[in-house]
C-alpha cells in the first residue's frame, strides 16, 4: 500500500510538468499578444514603443527562456509572476478569486448530494414505480440542460417575476454569511443541477446492483426490515462509486463554473481565466490553468487512494 501511494504521488510530477509545458505552448500558439491588443487601432504606436513594452513584459525572450524563467520562479520562489495587463501579482489575484470558486463548487456539491442521494435510493428501492419514473425523467432532464442556459434563464425569471436578482457585489461569508448565501445560492444551484442528475443516476444504478446481491438477500432472509437493509447493508456499499464520481466532479466543477461566474458577475478563478485569455495575459492564464489542472489531478489521485481505502477488495501490489 505504501509503495502504491508513493508511486501515485511520484507520477504526479511528470503529469504536472507536462501540463505546464502544454499550457505554456498552447497559449503561445494563439496569434497576437498583449501588446498587439493594447495597441489595437492605435495608428501612432511605434514599433519602438511596442518593442520596449514587450521587453518590459519579458515577451522578447526566446520561448524556452520564457518557460524556464516561469517554471523557476514558480518552483524556487513560489512566484507565478505579475499580470501583464494589470500588473497585479498573480498570487494576489488568484487569492481573491479562489474563495469565490471554492465556495461555489462546494455549495454546488453539497446541494447536489443532499438531493441526489436520497432520490437515487428512493428510485432504486421503488423500482419501476411512479416515483422511480419521475426521478429518472428528472435526472435525464437535469443531465441535458446546459448550466449556462439555466443560469441565464433563472436570472431573467427571478428578475422579471420577483424583481429580484442576487446582490451584485461579492460579500465574503466570514463578514456576512446570510448576504453571502443570498448571493451564492442561485449560481450554486445552477451549477449543481447537472451534478445532481449524475449523482442521482449513479446512486440508483449502484443501489439496484447492490440490492440484487446475495448478502442483501441473506439480510432479508434473516428478517432484517427493509429500511435496515436499504440503509445499513446496501447504501454503504453502493456509495463507494458515487463518492469517487463526486470527487472527480469537484475538479470539473471548479473549471466548469467559469461560465456561471461570468453570468453572475462573480470574480472567481474561471472568470479570471477567461478574461486573461481574451487579454493574452500569459502568466495569468498559465497560473490559473495550471492551478485548476493541479486541483483536478490532486483530487483524482486522492479519490483513487481513498477508493482503495474504502474498498479493501482493491488490492495494491
Amino acid at each position, binding site marked *: 500500500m505504501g509503495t502504491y501511494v508513493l508511486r501515485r504521488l511520484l507520477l504526479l510530477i511528470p503529469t504536472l510538468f507536462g501540463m505546464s509545458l502544454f499550457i505554456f505552448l498552447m497559449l503561445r500558439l494563439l496569434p497576437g499578444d498583449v501588446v498587439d491588443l493594447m495597441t489595437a487601432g492605435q*495608428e501612432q504606436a511605434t514599433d519602438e514603443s511596442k518593442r520596449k513594452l514587450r521587453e518590459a513584459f519579458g515577451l522578447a525572450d526566446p520561448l524556452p527562456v520564457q518557460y524556464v524563467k516561469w517554471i523557476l520562479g514558480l518552483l524556487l520562489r513560489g512566484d507565478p509572476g505579475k499580470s501583464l495587463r494589470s500588473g497585479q501579482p498573480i498570487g494576489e489575484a488568484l487569492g481573491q478569486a479562489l474563495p469565490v470558486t471554492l465556495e461555489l463548487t462546494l455549495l454546488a456539491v453539497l446541494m447536489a448530494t443532499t438531493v441526489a442521494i436520497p432520490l437515487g435510493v428512493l428510485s432504486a428501492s421503488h423500482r419501476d414505480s411512479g416515483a422511480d419514473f419521475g426521478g429518472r425523467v428528472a435526472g435525464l432532464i437535469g443531465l441535458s440542460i446546459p448550466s449556462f442556459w439555466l443560469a441565464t434563464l433563472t436570472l431573467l425569471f427571478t428578475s422579471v417575476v420577483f424583481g429580484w436578482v442576487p446582490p451584485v457585489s461579492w460579500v465574503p461569508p466570514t463578514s456576512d454569511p446570510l448576504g453571502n448565501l443570498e448571493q451564492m445560492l442561485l449560481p450554486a444551484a445552477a451549477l449543481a443541477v447537472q451534478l445532481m442528475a449524475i449523482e442521482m443516476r449513479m446512486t440508483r444504478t449502484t443501489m439496484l446492483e447492490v440490492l440484487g446481491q446475495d448478502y442483501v438477500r441473506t439480510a432479508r432472509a434473516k428478517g432484517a426490515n427493509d429500511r435496515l437493509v436499504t440503509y445499513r447493508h446496501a447504501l454503504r456499499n453502493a456509495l463507494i462509486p458515487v463518492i469517487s464520481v463526486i470527487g472527480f466532479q469537484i475538479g470539473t466543477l471548479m473549471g466548469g463554473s467559469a461560465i456561471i461566474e461570468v453570468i453572475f458577475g462573480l470574480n472567481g478563478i474561471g472568470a479570471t481565466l477567461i478574461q486573461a485569455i*481574451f487579454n493574452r495575459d500569459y502568466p495569468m492564464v498559465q497560473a490559473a490553468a495550471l492551478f485548476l489542472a493541479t486541483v483536478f489531478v490532486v483530487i483524482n489521485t486522492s479519490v483513487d487512494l481513498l477508493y482503495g481505502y474504502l474498498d479493501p477488495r482493491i488490492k495494491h501490489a
Partner: protein
Amino acid sequence: MSPDVRSLLRRGLTRRAWLLRAGLLAGSGLLAACAPGAPAAPTQAPAAAPTAAAKPTTAPAAAPTTAPPAATTVPAAKPTTAPAAAPTTAPAAAGKRGGKLTWALEQDPVHLIPYGAVPTANMWGKEFMYDSLIAWDRNLAIQPALATEWSAPDDHTYVFKLRQGAKFHDGSEVTAEDVKWGIEAQANPPPPGIKTQYPAKITTIDAVDKYTVRINMSGPDPSVIGYFAWQRYTPVTPKGIYDKVNVLTQGIGTGPYKLVEFVPNDRVVYTRNPDFWNKDLPYLDEITLKVLPDEQARVAALRSGAIDGGTFTADVAKTMANDRNLTVLKGLYAAHKEIQFVLKDAKNPWSDVRVRQAINHAINRQDIIDKVFGGDASYSSIIPPGYGDWPLPEADLKGNYLKYDVDKAKSLLQAAGFGSGFEMELQSINPPRYITQSAEVVSEHLKAVGIKANVVPLEIGTFAKNNADGSYSGAQLTARGMRGDPNGYVTEFHPKTPIFATWFEGGFLNDELTKILDDALLTPDQAKRKQLYTRAQQILLTELPHIPLVQDMKYQVVRNRLKNMYVSYTDFNTGLREAWVEG
C-alpha cells in the same frame, strides 16, 4: 451659434477675449455639435489670437451651457442649468444631493493607471477621479476644467492658467509643477502604459509660476488642445504619483469622486469628493461600477434594480423599452465601422483603386443599417458623424461618394479587368457580433457584383495582431474610436505615421493628400482647417484606401430614478459625473 459661445458673450467678455476663446474652442477641433437636425456650430470662428487676453485667473471662466443633451432622452431632467461640466458659477444645483448608484461595466477596467492606458475600459474605471486641464462637455465643446484659461501666444507655444485652490484627493493643491510632471509622464509612460497619442511636437514644458504652465512646441499643432481635453490620456495627477500609491488599483486625482477601492474583474467604488473644485458637484454620495460582462445578466440586474444602468446592444435595449421603470437613452458615439485594406502588394485585385471603388459602390449601407443596426445608424465619412461639423454632409455621402450603385460597381470591375469577379477574405471581429453581421451583409452585397468575400470571424486578439502587422490577405471589417482632433481620423494615411509603413508603403501614396494633412496641422484658422479636412475626405473617399461604412448608436438603459445621464460621444460614461438619483 454654439451655446458655449453664446454664454461667453452673455458673461460680457471683451470682444478680444471672445475672439481668443472662440478661436481656441474651435482649435479644439470639436466645436459644439448641436442636437441632430440643428444647424451645426460654425467653424469659421477666428483663429487663435496670437496674444493672451489676460483675465484674472480667479474668475470663473464660463457659464454652464444650457443646451439639452444631444440625442438623449433622460426623463424629467430639468431642462435648464443642468450640465455641470461648466465650472463654479453655475446657478443653484438643479440636481438632488445624496444617494448611491450602481452602474454596470461590460468590461473589466483591468487597471487604473493614469498614463499610457489604451483600453477604453480603463477609462471607464478611472474617469470619475480625474480631471484634465480642459474637458469636453456633452456637446463636445471644450470647457475649462483644471485650467481656467488657455492661449497660444505664438504658434510654438500654449499657455494654461490653472484654477487656484483646486485640490487633489490627498489634500495637496494642484500646481504647475504637478501638471508639468504629468505631461512628461505622458511622453514616457511606465509599463503597462504605452505612448500612443502624445503630440510629437511638444518639446518642453515649463512651470512658469505656481499656476501657469507653458508648453513649448517644435512647430504649430492645433490638435494639442483636443489632446488636453482627452482625459483618457491627460489626467492631472500629483507629481510623483507612482511613488505615492499603487497606480494599478489606486489613484489620486481632483475629480468629483474619490476612489474607495478597485477589485479587478469585480468592482470600482467611488465616494463623493467634498472638496471638488466645482462646488455644485457632485450629487451622489457613492458610485459603484460593477463588472457584468454578460448582457442578459445586466438585463436581469437592471430590471430588478440591482444596478441603475448600463450599456446594451440595440436589440436588447429595445426589449426593455416597454418597462415602466426604465428609460432607454441613445446617442451617436465615436466608433464608426469601416473596411480596411493592406495595399502593399500590387498583385492583389484591391490594390487597383477601381476595384476599391467598385466595392464601395456595391455596398448598400442602408441595408447594413436596417439589417444589423435596427434602422438606427448613419452613413459615415472618414470622420464619423457627430464629430462636430468636420465630417462630409450625409447627403453628399449618400448621393455621391458612398452611393449604392451596382451598375457602376460592375463597370468599374470590368474596367479593372475583374469583370468575372474574384475571391477574397473578409476578416471581422467576433464578438461583438454586429461587426461580423455587418461583414456578412457586405459579403452578400459583393456577391451581386461577382466578388466572393468569405467572412472570417476572428477573436479580438488574433484580429488585432493581423491588423497591427498587416499580415492578412483581403480586407478587415473593424470599428474605429474617439480621436482628440479630426487629424486623428486621417493621420494613418500620412507617410510619417508609424502604421503607414505597415499598411500602405509602396502601394498607396497621394501627394496632394500628404500636403493637405501637413498644411492642416500648420493652420490654426479653423475655417481653413475645415476646408483642408473636407478636401482630404473627398480624396480619401475617392481613393478609398479604407472604406467607411456606418456609424451606429450607443444604447444605455437606466432606471428612472437616475437623472441627468446621457450617452457620451466619447464612449465613456462621463454623464455620471453630473448625474443624480431620486428616491
